[in-house]
Structure formats: C-alpha cells, structure tokens
C-alpha cells in the first residue's frame, strides 16, 4: 500500500508531465515549421524595408509600424474602461445591474472575432466616419480584449486578502485612495498578465482587422490612415498570395519573437514591481 501510494505520486506526475508536453509539443512543431520556411527571409533589411510584390519580397517595416499603432490604440482604449468595469464589479454590494454586467462581459468574451470585425466596420468605420483606419482597427480590438482585461483584473483584485479593503477603510482612507494606493498596486501583477494576454490576442487577431484597419501596406501618416497589422499581413500572404508561405512564415516568426519579448518584459517588470513593493514596506 505504501509502495503503491509512492508510485501513484510518480505515475500521476508523469501523466501530468505528458499532458504538459502535449501542449508544448505542437508549439515546437509549429515553430520548427516556421523556422524551416521563414528563417531564410529574416535579415536586418526585413525590418527596415517596405513591402514589395505583396510581401513576397522586401520587408515589413510599414506593417510593423501599423501594428504598433493599432496595438497602442487598442490598449489605450481598452485599459481605462477595462479597469473601471473591473473595479466597479469588485466593489462591495451586489445588484441586478452588476449581475447583468457580469453576464454581458461573459457574452462579450464569446462573440466571434469576425462579428467584432463586422460591428467595427459598421460602427467605427461607417457610423463614426473613421473609415478604414488604424483607429477603427484599434478600437475594434479594444472591444474584443475588454472581457479578458476585466476578468483578469477582477480575479487579481479578488485574490487580494479580504482584510485589505476593510483595514484600509478602517484607516479612514477615501475610496479613491484605497483603490489607487491599496488595491491597484496589489492587483498589478494580475492586471499585467491580463494586459499581456490582451496584447497577444490583439497582435494575433486577423478577422476583426480585415474589415476595419484594412489592407494598405504603406507606412501610415496618421491614425486615420489605413494600415495592415502583422497578422493581416500573414493572413493575406498565406491565403491570397501564391508562394506567400515564406513571407508569411518569416512574418509569423517576427510576431512570435515580439510576443516573447513582450512576455519577457512584462514578467521582468512585474517582478521588479513586486520587489519594490516588498522592500518599501
């Protein structure tokens, strides 16, 4: 019995390890395929040259430029309301509106991204008259990542010890101070994770952008210009351009490296933040 329990632990660990491998194996496979096909295209010029022959030649500099602006618009538009809704939801007290709001955030999370694209085209491009533009695309993406931001922030705030809010209230702090100085710093690592996931989704989104930020491969002069994000570029090369696979793979590799960098930086900074928080206590 003793032995079987020991072995049970071992077997269980192995099963879980295999499960972990199941998730990571295909990733390595995908990355290997991308490297095999696309690595040859990547050179310093790839990052600085304009798109030529629909992406079969040249670089992706304007695409990177547009992507950066789109993500910036998206985060800028999504983070303030996202945090606002999350803090609204974690305040004490429950009412029908809150219940309904939670349900709608859940619903928002399940709306197909292509529906966001159609909505964005009708609302931002046509109704608000923003046209095919970086701004339209960024705002559409903001709607899409809003539920991710809200849910991770709520989870981060709820993971804080119960007594934090009550003890802060007992000190006679205003709600504003409690939120900005007590809850927000405590929940920051969780919020950062939410933003990272949101950024990753924004970067890898295609369907919502084709109809909103458009397709242009030139460097945008303003937020009201059309510009294609890197995922749209990958999509176009893979789906519409004969022999686009190499360019698509190379661009996908660049996207992966960018994501790696973002994850690394957010982790680095949130750890740094945590350290500061502890040492200042």
């Amino acid at each position: 019995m003793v032995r079987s329990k020991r072995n049970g632990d071992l077997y269980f660990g192995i099963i879980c390890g295999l499960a972990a491998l199941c998730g990571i194996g295909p990733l390595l496979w995908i990355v290997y395929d991308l490297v095999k096909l696309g690595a040859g295209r990547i050179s310093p010029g790839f990052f600085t040259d304009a798109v030529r022959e629909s992406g079969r030649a040249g670089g992706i500099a304007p695409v990177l430029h547009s992507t950066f602006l789109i993500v910036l618009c998206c985060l800028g538009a999504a983070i303030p309301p996202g945090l606002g809704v999350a803090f609204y939801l974690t305040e004490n007290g429950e009412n029908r509106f809150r219940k309904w709001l939670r349900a709608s955030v859940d619903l928002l999370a399940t709306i197909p991204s292509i529906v966001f694209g159609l909505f964005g085209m009708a609302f931002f491009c046509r109704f608000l008259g923003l046209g095919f533009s970086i701004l339209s695309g960024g705002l559409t993406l903001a709607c899409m990542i809003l539920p991710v931001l809200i849910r991770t922030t709520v989870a981060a705030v709820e993971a804080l010890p119960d007594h934090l809010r009550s003890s802060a209230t007992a000190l006679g702090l205003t709600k504003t101070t409690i939120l900005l100085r007590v809850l927000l710093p405590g929940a920051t690592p969780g919020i950062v994770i939410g933003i990272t996931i949101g950024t990753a989704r924004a970067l890898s989104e295609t369907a919502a952008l084709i109809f909103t930020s458009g397709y242009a491969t030139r460097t945008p002069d303003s937020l009201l210009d059309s510009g294609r994000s890197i995922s749209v570029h990958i999509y176009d090369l893979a789906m519409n351009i004969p022999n686009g696979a190499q360019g698509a793979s190379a661009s996908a590799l660049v996207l992966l490296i960018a994501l790696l960098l973002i994850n690394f930086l957010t982790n680095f900074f949130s750890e740094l933040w945590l350290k500061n928080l502890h040492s200042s206590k």
Partner: protein
Amino acid sequence: MSRLRSDRVLSFVLNAAALLCGALVLGIVLFLSIEAAPTIFSGKISAFFTDEKWQPGSERDPQFGIFSMLLASVLITLLAAILAVPVGICGAIFRVFYAPESLAKWQDRFLELLAGIPSVIFGFWGLSVIVPFINRYHPPGQSLLAAGIVLALMILPTIALTTKSALTAISPSLMAGAAALGLSRPAQILQVAIPTARKGIAAGCALGLGRAIGETMAVVMVCGNIAQIPHSVFDPVRPVTSTIALEMGYATAEHKSYLYAAGLVLVLMTALFLLVRIRKGASQW
C-alpha cells in the same frame, strides 16, 4: 471636502465605464439585429430552421438551413473542450506541483507564446499536418476531429494558464493541512487543490470555450465546411463562424442578411447558455 469629491468623481468614472461596457454588448446585439432585420421581419427566418440544407448560392433552389451549422459550432467546441480541459488542467498541475522552478518558467513562456500564435498559422499547420494524417485513415481528413484538435491546441494555453494562477493562489496553509492529514500528493491535488481552485479553473475553461465557439480563421481551414449533420468525428462539418468568414465578403443583399442573422443566432445561443449557467449559480465570478 475635496477628498469626498474625488470619491464622487471615482464613482462617476466607474459607473461610466460599467455603462459603456454594458452599452457595447447591447450595441453589438442591436447592430446584428439591424443588419439581420430584412431576414427577421420578412418572416424568412423560419427558413433557418425548416430548410434542410445551406445553399444560398443556388439559383434553382436556394436554401438557408442553419441547424447543422449551429450543431457543428457546438460539437466542435465540445470536442475541443473534451481534449483541452483535461490536458490543460493536468499540464497546470505539473507546472505548479511537479516541475522544478526552471522548467516551470519555460512552460509558462511556451504557453504564453502558444496563446499568441495567429489563428491562420494554426489553421495552416492543421491543414498541412493534422488533416493529411487523418486523411490517411478516413478521407477527406478535413473533419470535426481535425477542427477539434486544432481548436483544443488554441484554447489550451488559456485553460492551462488560468488553472495555473488559480492553483498558485491557494493558501499554503490549506495544502499544509492536507499534507498533515497524511494525504498523498495526488490526493492533496485532486481532492483539495482542484476543488478549492474550481472557480478559477471554471472561469478559465469558460474563457477558452468562448474563444473556441467564436474562432474562425483556423477552423475554416480544417473543418471541411460541408453543412451537414456529422455521423462520426471524421465527417466534415461547417460551423456558423466559418460560414460568415467564407461568404460575408461575397454575399449580396439577402444572403448577407442571412449571414448576419446566423451570427445573431449564434450570439443568442451563447447568451442562453450563459443564462442557464447563471441561473444555476455557476457563473459567479
């Protein structure tokens, strides 16, 4: 006085954010309804449920049956969940309770990366690896199974990462208590840690499933896109999102309105599903 004013401003800002978010959901539903209106108000919406096939382009016999596509959306999502939930949770258990710290960090990085691969890439990988593999045994290869596998891979990181954070948030004293009762590690994990973290895990799964049912670009490559009721996992299917992606850019007036109506039905269906969960008290987060 000014301190209280700051509170009032704060409460105004929070309320405004909440209203904005609520309005967004209503706005999207409203927008879909307006675009779908020609179909709904002409009474042709009944064709959705009475027509057997989906062949909007046929001149002789246009049909707009949506049932098989809704079924396909549900089946693909379910299959992806069956594949991804156990694997994701077990992977997270490995990460939290078994993996040495250095390995665990790598696992996190990889999963975060997996979460960021564009769906087109998943789609093409599925089309060039999974589909030919299935094709060898059950042609054509494009199938419910292929779509389920590709989707499972796509939602795996969401499930694994949220499960991981739910498991790490468990108070160490609880786990020490379980250990002090002489529970073996699998028992500590399965009977104490998982039930304790179930809310977080369920939230992660819900998030993953939400993404699965709405996923388009990867599924459209590997599901075969035949609107039919599948008899096995090897049959090709066509979910609602695929139809929208395949036909929206090419559809004209009436056909287009049917596509919007299909999107609306999908959204309402998930809303119904959510409502049931809320009624059962399962979605309190």
